[in-house]
């Protein structure tokens, strides 16, 4: 431990006590040292203890937690030896936290000005006039528009990105030497995320604060940290420079984690990391990762591995960088599979919310614009259509309209060639059966009062006339298909892990023997390694059943991994439709280009491109191009007055933009400065 360190953690083990007073560890023997001005990333999946560690750096223990050994030094002072009062002073003044979902940490009844002023009053000796100047400086520092505008607003009047900026301003205002960022961009759209990350990176450089970023996302960590601590089951399994750890991880866990991230440059389903991490507080023998490790030997199961030096840091492994096993990847067929029958078709689909009752009609209110307008959907058997867009792009609304859960204003849906009624309650059961749905949040999609058996039995009972014997066989087949033991049939959802729940959701959809399945953000609530396993399962089931998918996601890389064709949506309007390879290659729709540019990769040498502002969009515009307000290539009044035509760019690839095809190719092709990736020196607008 160097004497110059700002925060030093020395053999820290903490946890809670079991019913018999036995220690249950959440963090195990952690030793880290952070120098002033250094940026550090704590990365790990849920339950890895990364947030607990970050909070311990602030001298904060959750309720019921206690330290069993080790200490935390902040500027050579043992933080847990201080009085509660001294610790409280240290927090906020010398080390500040920017919590996850900053919007919820702001007081809803305080204007931004008063909010920041309160933090300044508490943590600085400044007088009123000085505080006012400081406020202006802070808002400028976090790149919020001039104080008059933003400072007088309430938190709910700000976009998610702006709320995050206010939270950052409050933390900076205290003049803290260290900032802890807990999942700083989780929940933000990709374009907003790129802006916040750029801001944070500049702050770390300019203000010289030590920044500790906690995230599950290796892409975020790559942007914000020079040093990385990879956490697994309460241990730091690898520590080292970001460039080193992310390019050549020595520990098998980060290796597997990196392999499980879907990448834009590879059209394949990433390798899955099977198994689940040990439960918090479980007693353990040997290496925590051994049960899931591809290179584990007997020694790994017998005793805890030592911390060993690697090329770029340390790793807690017997065989650092030893025996590299090439991850098995699931190559997807390259040629678009456009041969199957049309299993789902929707034409001219428009959905409008709140059409207004009698009251609105009496007042002659303008009807609200359509949330989804003139969308076309075509899916063939065995083919996946990816719907991509940020929040509010109408992805889920389209799925609901296809499933008949929302009645569209216009449009006709046909399932396997059969036109069906708009509302699911008017559809015949025979026409419902071929179309099934998998939900985003498996927690809420499974009835907590039903066993897995009851949950899977529902579609069987509804669609098929099976004998009890056949039902038993079918249930066993379904469980085998989603790779879960049959014993799970008698469990309640609360007895399953997140990934297991999602498998049950998938099994329920496939119980109906569907021809097309609507997948609504099916992996966004899962950890990365679990996500890969679920994506593989979905791909495998498609292979064997010839099912068509509509796969909705905000994550371009995930869609890229599974989709044959992709539709990019902005505010409920189709911007670009085409085969995956064509959509992810120039020429792009300007919005696709913006999205592509904002994607993060777990590579510290690339930077997201900031092609547009992170402004809040109001209701969809009723005239002109939906993207006109944020478009980096807007050409003029035609964008405001006329709906852009869908122009053909080769077979089946169309882009809805006024810019003529040749110019669009030039504007968005890789040799323009606005390309994505590369060591771009992007500046804020």
């Amino acid at each position: 431990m160097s004497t110059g360190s700002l925060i030093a953690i020395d053999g820290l083990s903490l946890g809670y006590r079991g019913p018999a007073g036995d220690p249950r560890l959440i963090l195990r023997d952690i030793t880290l040292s952070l120098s002033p001005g250094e940026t550090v990333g704590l990365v790990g999946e849920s339950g890895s203890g990364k947030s607990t560690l970050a909070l311990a750096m602030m001298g904060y223990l959750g309720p019921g937690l206690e330290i069993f050994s080790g200490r935390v030094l902040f500027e050579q002072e043992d933080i847990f030896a201080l009085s509660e009062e001294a610790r409280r002073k240290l927090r906020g003044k010398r080390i500040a936290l920017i919590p996850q979902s900053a919007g919820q940490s702001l007081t809803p009844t305080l204007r931004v000005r008063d909010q920041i002023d309160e933090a300044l009053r508490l943590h600085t000796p400044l007088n009123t006039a000085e505080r006012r100047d400081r406020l202006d400086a802070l808002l400028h520092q976090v790149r919020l528009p001039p104080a008059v505008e933003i400072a007088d607003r309430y938190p709910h009047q700000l976009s998610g990105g702006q709320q995050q900026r206010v939270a950052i301003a409050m933390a900076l205002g205290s003049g803290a030497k260290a900032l802890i960022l807990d999942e700083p961009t989780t929940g933000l759209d990709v374009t907003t995320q790129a802006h916040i990350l750029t801001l944070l990176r500049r702050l770390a450089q300019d203000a010289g604060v030590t920044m500790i970023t906690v995230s599950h996302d290796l892409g975020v960590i790559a942007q914000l940290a020079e040093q990385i601590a990879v956490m697994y089951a309460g241990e730091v399994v690898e520590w080292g420079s970001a460039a080193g750890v992310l390019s050549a991880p020595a520990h098998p866990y980060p290796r597997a984690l990196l392999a499980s991230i879907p990448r834009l440059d590879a059209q394949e389903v990433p390798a899955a990391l099977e198994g689940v991490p040990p439960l918090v507080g479980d007693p353990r023998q040997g290496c925590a990762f051994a049960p899931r490790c591809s290179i584990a030997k007997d020694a790994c199961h017998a005793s805890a591995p030592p911390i060993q030096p690697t090329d770029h840091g340390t790793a807690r492994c017997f065989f650092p960088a030893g025996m590299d096993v090439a991850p098995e990847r699931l190559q997807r067929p390259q040629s678009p599979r456009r041969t199957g029958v049309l299993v789902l078709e929707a034409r001219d689909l428009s959905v409008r919310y709140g059409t207004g009752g009698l009251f609105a009609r009496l007042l002659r209110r303008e009807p609200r614009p359509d949330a989804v307008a003139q969308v076309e959907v075509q899916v063939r058997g065995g083919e996946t259509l990816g719907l991509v867009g940020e929040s509010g792009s109408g992805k889920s609304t389209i799925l609901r309209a296809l499933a008949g859960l929302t009645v569209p204003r216009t449009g006709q849906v046909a399932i396997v060639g059969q036109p069906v009624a708009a509302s699911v309650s008017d559809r015949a059961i025979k026409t419902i059966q071929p179309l099934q749905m998998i939900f985003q949040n498996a927690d809420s999609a499974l009835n907590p009062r039903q066993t897995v058996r009851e949950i899977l039995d529902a579609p069987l009972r509804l669609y098929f006339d099976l004998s009890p014997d056949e039902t038993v066989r079918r249930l066993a087949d379904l469980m085998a298909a989603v790779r879960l033991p049959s014993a799970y049939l008698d469990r309640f959802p609360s007895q399953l892990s997140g990934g297991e729940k999602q498998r049950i959701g998938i099994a329920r959809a496939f119980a109906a023997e569907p021809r097309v399945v609507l997948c609504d953000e099916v992996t966004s609530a899962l950890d990365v390694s679990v996500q890969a396993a679920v994506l593989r399962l979905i791909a495998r089931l498609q292979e064997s059943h010839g099912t068509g998918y509509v796969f909705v996601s905000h994550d371009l890389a995930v869609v890229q991994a599974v989709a044959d064709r992709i539709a990019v949506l902005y505010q409920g309007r189709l911007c670009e439709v085409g085969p995956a390879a064509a959509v992810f290659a120039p020429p792009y729709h300007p919005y696709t280009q913006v999205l592509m540019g904002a994607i993060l990769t777990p590579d510290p040498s690339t930077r997201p491109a900031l092609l547009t502002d992170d402004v809040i969009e109001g209701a969809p515009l009723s005239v002109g191009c939906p993207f006109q307000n944020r478009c980096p290539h807007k050409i003029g009044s035609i964008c405001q007055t006329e709906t852009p035509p869908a122009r053909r760019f080769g077979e089946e690839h169309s882009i809805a933009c006024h810019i003529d095809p040749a110019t669009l190719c030039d504007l968005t092709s890789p040799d323009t400065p606005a390309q994505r990736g590369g060591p771009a020196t992007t500046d804020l607008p």
Partner: protein
Amino acid sequence: MVARPRSSGTGGPRSHLLHRIMARPSGVIGLALTLFHVALALLAPLLSVHDVSLPNADTINLAPSWEHLMGTDSLGRDVFARVVHGGQLALMVTACAAAIAITWGGSVGMLLGVVGGRTDEIAMRFVDAMLSIPSLAFFLLMASVVGGGAWTIVPVLGFFYGVAVIRISRAATLQVAAQDFVMAAKARGERTGTIMRREVLPNVSSILLVEGAMQWSWMLLAFSSLSFLGYGATPPTPDWGLMIASERGLLAVAPWSVLWPCAALSTLIIGINLLADALGKALGVDRTREVPG
């Protein structure tokens, strides 16, 4: 994949329900009081040697003694015998009415919560209107239409208190219906009845159970009030409300014949109330939460 034992949460069996009720003082007192009264009502014929309804001119307004533990009333009947018998009718009538209230209120509330839309909107305004009618006024009106009598009052009580249950049941259903598993059932093409029975009911049954217990205690009060006013139990049936009504003029002379039935009625109502409260807490039902209209 390794099987991982996890806590069964609230989804597990209710074998420890009694344990969790008894974990609170309110649960212990409530359960004891309720069981005490139910036992009294069941064992009443064994507990008293005196006749409950036969007047006796020799034993008018006698003070409590070993012969008459709680004294005698203005017609010379043993108050103890009448108090232990007096709970029978009230408990039976209100238990039936509570069952009706919970069944009809619970199912209508679930239906409205699942169906939603204009039907729900109109039905809820009707519910609001019903809830604004003072209960006693409604009962007196109904009693004068259908006539008095303990058993004719059962459907009236059941209907009226069921309206309040609609609100609770609908609010609970709305929370369940907002979850994806109900949407999944709709998307699957399940009928509304199946959705209510299989998806919603198991998730709102605890709330309905607690609400039923609560309604039961209020109905006891209402039934006794009606008996007091002469629309419930009819003389010479031993009934607390009736006893209080007929003996109240003699409060100064023979207070025992009024105060004992009062005490019996209050302890039963308090007991059921405490039990309902403890039951709610044991089942994780939060009765303090605001109910959306």
